[in-house]
């Protein structure tokens, strides 16, 4: 017997529900693209901060450089840095992109006493909070400081 019945109401509702569920991951992927670009922006700013700090430390004389690195061994807000504060006062500076961005400097010594008097490794780590999350991301740059310029 041929049935002339169309779809029932409940079938249409279920179809709509399935379509909605199927489209949602597509929309979240668009949102994740935005988060990716935001993260890339933070990476670039953090890279600039790390490069600048490393350059500042590398131009100091050997002993002074080592002392300064040890002094900056704990997590410090980028905006709390004295040079940063002094320079940011020169223009209408907007510090929102540096919100809760920290830096830290690690010193790694060579294995032997003789090598220790000639070089050490400086590692600058810059970290920032991930949006809508309690986690933090970071990037590090390393350089070797030599006692005499090579």
């Amino acid at each position, binding site marked *: 017997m041929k049935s002339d019945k169309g779809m029932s109401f409940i079938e249409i509702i279920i179809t709509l529900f399935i379509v909605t569920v199927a489209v949602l991951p597509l929309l979240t992927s668009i949102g994740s693209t*935005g988060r990716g670009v935001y993260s890339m922006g933070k990476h670039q700013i953090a890279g*600039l901060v790390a490069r600048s700090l490393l350059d500042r430390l590398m131009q100091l004389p050997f002993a002074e450089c080592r002392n300064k690195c040890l002094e900056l061994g704990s997590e410090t807000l980028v905006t709390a840095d004295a040079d940063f504060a002094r320079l940011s006062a020169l223009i209408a*500076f907007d510090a929102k992109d540096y919100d809760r961005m920290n830096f830290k400097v690690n010193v790694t010594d060579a294995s032997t006493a003789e090598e220790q008097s000639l070089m050490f490794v400086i590692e600058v780590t810059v970290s920032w909070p991930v949006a809508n999350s309690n986690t933090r991301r970071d990037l590090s740059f390393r350089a070797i400081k030599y006692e005499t310029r090579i």
Partner: protein
Amino acid sequence: MKHAFKNNRQAFTLLELIVGLLIVMLIYASFSRIFSSSGQQIEKSSRMLELQGLLDSVEHCIREDVRKLKRVELSTEANPGRFCFMISDADKVVRLEYEFIAARKGILRRELSAGAPTSRMLGEGHILACVFEALVTDGQFKRLDLAMNLHVDSNAETADRDLSVIAHFTSRCTDPYLPWLAAP
């Protein structure tokens, strides 16, 4: 006896249609909101990318030049919007000058070597403020500090985007700074 034909082709009731339309409209409204916020997010992201590209090009250019700095020609005390120095590039001495041009919202890079001088604008139309500060101690160039405000304009849907940066640049091949020998 004639068999009575039973018509079983029932249509939707008015109530079902109204409820169905309501659900479709709700879904449409939520989708359009999500799509529009996603569009704005993408627009904001593209502004951020534009700023990053600008920052990268300006910072990279200055860093590469200052790395080869041999001698400071004109320090920044008198005019913090201008910095002039000599570099040694491929066995020829080149005088470089960076100057913030407020009217063009950009940094002008002038290169003066033995041949014809060349110049190009960096970040034209996007740099709102720029301050150079050269640190010269005991006649020796230590580093160049830069504070800069970058800006990209808004469109109908998204707000302006600004980025403030502080950067330090050092040289690998400095000579003492002798201001009395500086070129005019």
